């Protein structure tokens, strides 16, 4: 697979707006500086009182260090397995202008060094084979003066809340799996996948400028109507949909992707999935481009209604706009195949333009939760929750298995080839995804000798994706692994606290019955003498029956992280 992408130049850009934002940050920081009781600012006593009473400053600084621990890793088997040192500072301000008007503003500044691991092991590319160049040193950095979040919260009356600004919205209650969390896009470039204990949603979602309103129709039944509108044009193009790691086999010999990109082993004769060669030379060179949503057509709208039916809390929602999830993208043909030769291609090769696109679609959402205390007098003490997303006519790439010549029917010898039936190589199918979750609070006194009533919070989830009217040959966009009618994943999470919550273990595990798994254990030390400090040891471990699908893609990327956070 060859993906092209734009460098993150926007993260280093400082324009006029950015200068203003930076000035705002400096101004706010100056305002909240402690001053002596006698000193008065040039703004006067009333202003000082307003600042003291209505502006609250908080935030955190954090350093995350990661070491690759995979045995025999092709990626990390270097003299230096150092694969992350992410330093973050995030100042945050809560401002209360009036009782009905508040604001929250935060900035995020990130610095990561250049990694020897990436420099040494990422200099390979295929089709054509040559040496590339490593990532730019500032690839992971973030120092945009534009606020990370900037929300103005206005409550004109008791029933209506209007929130405008750069913010997050996340529907549903799923843990570690993304189902209804489809409004904001995700930055998957710096964080390992399926590792909620390392970077949570708060840190990996990209906030979007939007308007959000909530109207409480009937407070006694929690009947709430929600609406949001997201213009998209205010985001940088790459932020309108997920940022992700592609592979590094780029034809322009520039390594654009970092530590969580797919394996070199996943490189297949990718172009041959879309077309057969036009000549005797059995090489198809894909020329790929990612088509990002344009500023004029990236609007997203959504609405939802919530209601309590007795003990049952339920919601129905609808979203229109781009499905931001990287895993749901498809490659579309951007032109007809043609012959090409050196230096761009091997002699006699065929080239094929492809574009990688996100689908602009309707998404129908539903969710519920219901507490069950007992069943047939047996104590259950579990909250059952469910959420569902229905994607009508969701596009998938499709191929024929095994590969064959569409004219002659002769096998090509490859595991897969272009679909002879679907010339566009894309097929649309109604798709339903759902999660059933069970949250249980359990007490295991012998495991908590110092506090028998410190709960173990257990969460079990069943995730399933169903493709209606499924056809054989539907596959992941990035390779030859097929997607079955049913895709299932089971997750389990257990968390508790020891010694007055100074030791906090938390384990998240995912199992895909097709033979893949991910484990993300973490243990955090919160010292009893300072509530501001947290030190966490976290592992992200992946595996599976192969390296071409699901969490198997990251099978050689097991890493161990040490995270130190100081909150201010």
């Amino acid at each position, binding site marked *: 697979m060859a993906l092209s992408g734009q460098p993150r130049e926007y993260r280093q850009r400082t324009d006029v707006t950015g200068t203003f934002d930076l000035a705002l940050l400096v101004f706010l920081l100056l305002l909240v500086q402690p001053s002596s009781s006698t000193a008065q600012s040039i703004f006067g006593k009333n202003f000082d009182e307003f600042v003291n009473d209505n502006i609250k400053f908080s935030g955190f600084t954090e350093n995350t260090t990661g070491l690759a621990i995979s045995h025999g890793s092709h990626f990390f088997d270097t003299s230096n397995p150092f694969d992350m040192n992410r330093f973050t500072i995030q100042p945050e301000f809560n401002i209360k202008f009036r009782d009905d008007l508040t604001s929250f503003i935060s900035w995020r500044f990130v610095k990561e060094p250049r990694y020897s691991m990436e420099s040494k092991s990422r200099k390979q590319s295929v089709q054509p084979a040559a040496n590339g160049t490593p990532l730019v040193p500032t690839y992971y950095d973030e120092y945009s003066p534009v606020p990370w979040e900037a929300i103005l919260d206005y409550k004109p009356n008791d*029933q209506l809340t209007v929130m405008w600004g750069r913010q997050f919205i996340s529907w549903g209650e799923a843990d570690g799996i993304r189902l209804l969390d489809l409004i904001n896009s995700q930055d998957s470039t710096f964080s390992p996948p399926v590792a909620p204990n390392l970077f949570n949603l708060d840190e990996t979602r990209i906030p979007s400028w939007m308007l959000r309103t909530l109207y409480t129709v009937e407070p006694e039944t929690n009947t709430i109507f929600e609406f949001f509108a997201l213009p998209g044009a205010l985001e940088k193009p790459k932020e309108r949909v997920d940022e992700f790691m592609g592979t590094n086999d780029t034809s322009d010999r520039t390594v654009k992707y970092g530590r969580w990109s797919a394996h070199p082993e996943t490189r297949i004769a990718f172009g041959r999935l879309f077309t057969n060669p036009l000549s005797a030379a059995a090489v198809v060179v894909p020329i790929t481009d990612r088509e990002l949503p344009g500023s004029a057509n990236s609007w997203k709208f959504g609405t939802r209604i919530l209601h309590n039916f007795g003990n049952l809390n339920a919601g129905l929602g609808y979203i229109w706009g781009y499905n931001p999830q990287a895993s749901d993208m498809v490659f579309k043909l951007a032109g007809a195949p043609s012959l090409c030769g050196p230096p761009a291609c091997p002699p006699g090769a065929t080239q094929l333009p492809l574009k990688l696109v996100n689908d602009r679609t309707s998404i129908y959402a539903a969710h519920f939760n219901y507490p069950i205390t007992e069943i047939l007098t047996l104590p259950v*003490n579990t909250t059952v929750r469910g959420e569902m997303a229905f994607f009508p006519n969701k596009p998938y790439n499709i191929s024929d298995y095994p590969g064959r010549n569409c004219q002659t029917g002769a096998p090509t010898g490859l595991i897969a080839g272009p679909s002879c039936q679907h010339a566009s190589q894309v097929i649309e199918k109604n798709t339903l995804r759902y999660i059933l979750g069970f949250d249980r609070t359990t007490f295991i006194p012998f495991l908590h000798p110092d506090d028998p009533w410190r709960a173990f919070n257990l969460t079990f989830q069943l995730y399933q994706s169903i493709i209606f009217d499924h056809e054989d040959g539907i596959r992941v966009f990035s390779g030859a692994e097929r997607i079955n009618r049913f895709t299932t994943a089971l997750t389990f999470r257990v968390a508790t606290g020891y010694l007055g919550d100074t030791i906090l273990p938390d384990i998240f595990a995912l199992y895909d019955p097709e033979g893949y798994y991910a484990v993300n254990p973490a243990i955090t030390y919160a010292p009893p003498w300072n509530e501001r400090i947290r030190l966490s040891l976290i592992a992200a471990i992946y595996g599976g029956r192969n390296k071409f699908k699901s969490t198997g893609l990251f099978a050689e990327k097991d890493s161990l992280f040490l995270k130190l956070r100081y909150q201010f």
Partner: protein
Amino acid sequence: MFFLKIMLGAAVLFFIPAQSPGADSDLKPGDIIGPQNWQHVQGMVGENLLYRIKQGYSFKIKQGRSIGPPKDYVLATKHYSEQVGLSTNGELLNYVAGQPFAEVNLKDPLAAQKLIWNFYWRWIGDDYKTGGGTGEGKIIRYAIEKDGSERRADVLHHTIKTRGRVSLGSRPILQGYEHIDWMQLRADEYPRDTAGTTTLEIRYGDPKREDDLYVYVPSIRRVRRAPPIQRCATIAPSEFNFDDINTFNAKISNFNYRFLGKFKMLGNLSQERIPFQRKTGDYLPLNESWEIVDSYAIEITPKDPSYCYPRKVIYFDSQNYEVLWSMVWDANGTYWKEQFALRTPVKLADGQEVLSVGSVVINNVQNGRSTVVDAVRTYNQGYQPTLFTLATLQTVMRGGSLR
């Protein structure tokens, strides 16, 4: 600590709740209590505090001051209490507002039930902000480890009564909320990692309907629903659980009650300083005087044998039904937790003086950890019920910004 446990265990067998009726006979304002004369307050304080007195803690006895409930509540009691009754299973019938039972005959076999309902519907305002009366306008909580290490947390806490209202707007019932007793919002504000974590709690009047408990988790930006058993879980790192809030915040119908008698206990209904002075790493109030308070004692045992507290005894003052002491024993009958709550007078908007909780201390004598909470309330804030909905949770921002 082992020695302390042994001592306290022995106290369970031989002392609690057999307070000597004459324990206070020699006490008078101005007396200094300390290790030299701890016998004077034996049975008037919890065993853990008595142990600390023996170890050196000393304080002065002061003259008590009577502050009763406000006139609206007294009027409502006069107006409605005669119609109130108890069902055969102890449920409250025909309650509207005020104190359910104006007079309780302590020899009545149903005295415990009547007293606990009086406690449940005691005057606490039509709504209140716990911590609103502290200097910082929020609850300040310190979790203290056995070795004296401390961690601070700041919490916002809003409560609205939807029934039994006597002062504000729609009363005695908020229309549409006949089925709900009260609702609470509790938002962590500090430290930052937990800031914005917000709990919405709804108590239903139906004795068979469990509470609703929703938690907004800022790190995943989602509202999760907690199962009812969560009420029993320790709100770590504190030693409280949800049912310990306001000393006894559980659903009345889930427990059995036994009246243990009327006792003179030591309390502090006019806390001098908020927060009280203390040594860093210790929970004992310094330079605070204590007073003798007429109190009722109720033993509380759960109907569900798997409930976290097999036995709890609370002592509340006989005038305001505000709890002074709470003691908990574990399933082995070993002394487990001891809580004392200091009270302080606060003024309503019309100038009436009423009692509010001041600082609360809970000790887990088994693991040595303690929690100190400064929680002075501001009453009758005029909250609207729309504040206590999932919409509020959906809009909580980092930093726990709540109206």
